[in-house]
């Protein structure tokens, strides 16, 4: 184990996989200068300009070209820069990449990873801050991943690159600098498997991406109040680890889902609904969700902060869940 950053872990995943498999290449704007966050720093020097491929500002063609390139036996890693710009390439992802394998009767597959950094990043405003992971979970054919730790960014990105289907891989911009333990040898994390980030039996918190850390902070505080929560970091949103979540809620009887995206029709709705359907009779309190209000992300800090799920809100929600029921 060594300390490394979330950003470097992702970079290492790309290096290891590109070294292992010559058919892998990366394409996107400014990759030769390291990409917009430095995730690709030095990679063009290692792998050359053909495999770390600078592209025009043509998101639709970046995505569409990756589909064609995947059909011809290469394995593209698509860099979308900010997930917001992936909205310029939705036909290519949703109507083409996601459906091709099925629509053409399984004649081929479309192995590609679409890296699209999500999340609020101080004062980046409405067009550079979105988290739309729930959209992709709704689209047949897509795998959806949102890592929260350096180790997971290594292990999940490697698995995503090895996946034979299109993967929407959402790193969180606020996590680039996060340091953490990262295994030194080959490290793969299975897609579809959640991580129990903290064990507890009072309440099950299901979360992912940057909110994992907020939930763990809240859990510390709650522990000092004698409330031990279990924090499950889903890591993969499709397929999500239903078994892990149901097993936990069966024990705790209480569910809180926490995500940064807008609450309305966020992926938390799917989890809360699934748990309510499956475990209604085991629940000791109603399922509960925390997510952003249905507002665009504003620029000014005091406004932007209103779109954030705070540690305090998580603590309050947990306290509400464990409080004895009072007549409404």
């Amino acid at each position, binding site marked *: 184990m060594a300390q490394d950053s979330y950003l470097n872990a992702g970079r290492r995943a790309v290096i290891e996989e590109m070294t292992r498999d010559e058919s892998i290449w990366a394409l996107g704007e400014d990759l030769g200068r390291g990409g917009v966050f430095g995730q690709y720093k030095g990679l063009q020097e290692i792998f050359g300009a053909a495999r770390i491929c600078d592209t025009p500002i043509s998101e639709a063609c970046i995505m*569409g070209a990756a*589909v*064609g390139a*995947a059909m011809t036996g290469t394995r593209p890693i698509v860099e979308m820069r900010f997930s917001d710009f992936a909205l310029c390439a939705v036909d290519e992802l949703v109507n083409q990449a996601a459906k091709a394998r099925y629509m053409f009767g*399984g004649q081929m597959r479309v192995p590609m990873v679409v890296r699209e950094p999500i999340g609020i990043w101080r004062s980046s405003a409405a067009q550079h801050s979105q988290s739309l992971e729930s959209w992709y979970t709704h689209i047949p*054919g897509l795998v959806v991943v949102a890592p929260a730790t350096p180790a997971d960014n290594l292990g999940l990105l490697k698995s995503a690159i090895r996946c034979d289907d299109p993967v929407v891989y959402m790193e969180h911009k606020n996590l680039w600098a996060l340091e953490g333990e990262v295994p030194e040898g080959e490290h793969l994390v299975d897609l579809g498997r959640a991580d129990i980030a903290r064990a507890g039996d009072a309440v099950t918190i299901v979360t992912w991406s940057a909110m994992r850390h907020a939930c763990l902070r809240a859990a510390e505080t709650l522990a000092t109040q004698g409330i031990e929560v279990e924090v499950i970091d889903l890591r993969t949103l499709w397929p999500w680890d239903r078994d892990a979540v149901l097993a936990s809620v069966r024990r705790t009887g209480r569910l809180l889902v926490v995500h940064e995206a807008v609450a309305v029709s966020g992926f938390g709705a799917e989890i809360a609904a699934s748990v309510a359907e499956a475990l209604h009779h085991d629940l000791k309190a109603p399922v509960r969700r925390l997510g952003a209000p249905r507002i665009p992300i504003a620029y000014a800090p005091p406004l932007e902060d209103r779109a954030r799920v705070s540690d305090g809100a998580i603590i309050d929600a947990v306290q509400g869940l464990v409080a004895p029921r009072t007549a409404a």
Partner: protein
Amino acid sequence: MTQTKNIDRARFLALLRLMHRIRAFEEAAIGAQQAGLVLGAIHPSIGQEAVAAGVCTNLERADLLLSTHRGHGHTLAKGADPLAMMRELFGRAGGTCGGKGGSMHIADFGVGMLGANGVVGANIPIATGAAHGLKLQGSRQIVACIFGDGAINRGPFLEGLNWARAFDLPVLFVCEDNGFSATTRTATMTGGAGAGARAESIGIPALEVDGNDLPELDAAARGAIAEIRAGKGPVLLHAKTYRITGHTAVDPATYRPAEEVAAQRAKCPIARMEALLALAGVEAETLAQLASEAAEEMTAIAAKAEATGWPDAARAFADVQDIGDPRERAF
């Protein structure tokens, strides 16, 4: 306009036969649709067969092709099995896509046919990326990408062409210009001189040909493909033709005068090819036989398709993706 006795008779007889087969395939499909056997939309390419024949005959089997919603001709010309195609249109087992795609999504990767597409212009970035993939792998294969005149007003046309030029990719762009974007005359919605001018402004050489003149098209495609295979990067072929039928098989196309259609029917590439071969000494009987053989072949194929069973309903859940249960929470 090609008008000479000195044409390669064997070659053009074969291509005429191909055009007849394309037309017969579509006529059989339209008939089947009228009989309630083909449930999805059909976009016939009747009158446009020369583009399919002239382009695809110059591709090698390993070369790749991307097509449109109006792609039966291209697909047949690339070598796909018409019975599998017809089964696909009927939604039956053994269709090229196992009945999952239908007319607008026919693909046959076995012959390098990487798909029709239901989204106008969407095939252009995919074709460009396929060429990018081939180049990365050092292949000598090339990619042909056929699209309509309406597609040049979609952003992916610009992005794909620019990309192909920026990376000098082996791709032949073919604008199959039938004058219409569905029910709208493309010229009324299009600035400038069209596909060729736009390609040239992006640094891609463009050739304009009479798309109903098969020898002209054949020569242009052959030349362009040789250049592309030699590594000179993309070329655009702008083939002007005419859509004799409506946008779909059920569109009466009353938005254009009957005289216009009649005049264009007379210029149909099959009629022209027949006239040319007659001039070159081919007997009328031989020519007539090609037509009737094609009709027979495709009628038989439609009958076979009709006699084929449905795909197993459980296939609905196959080939979605390797992980995750597609049935989760449904029903």
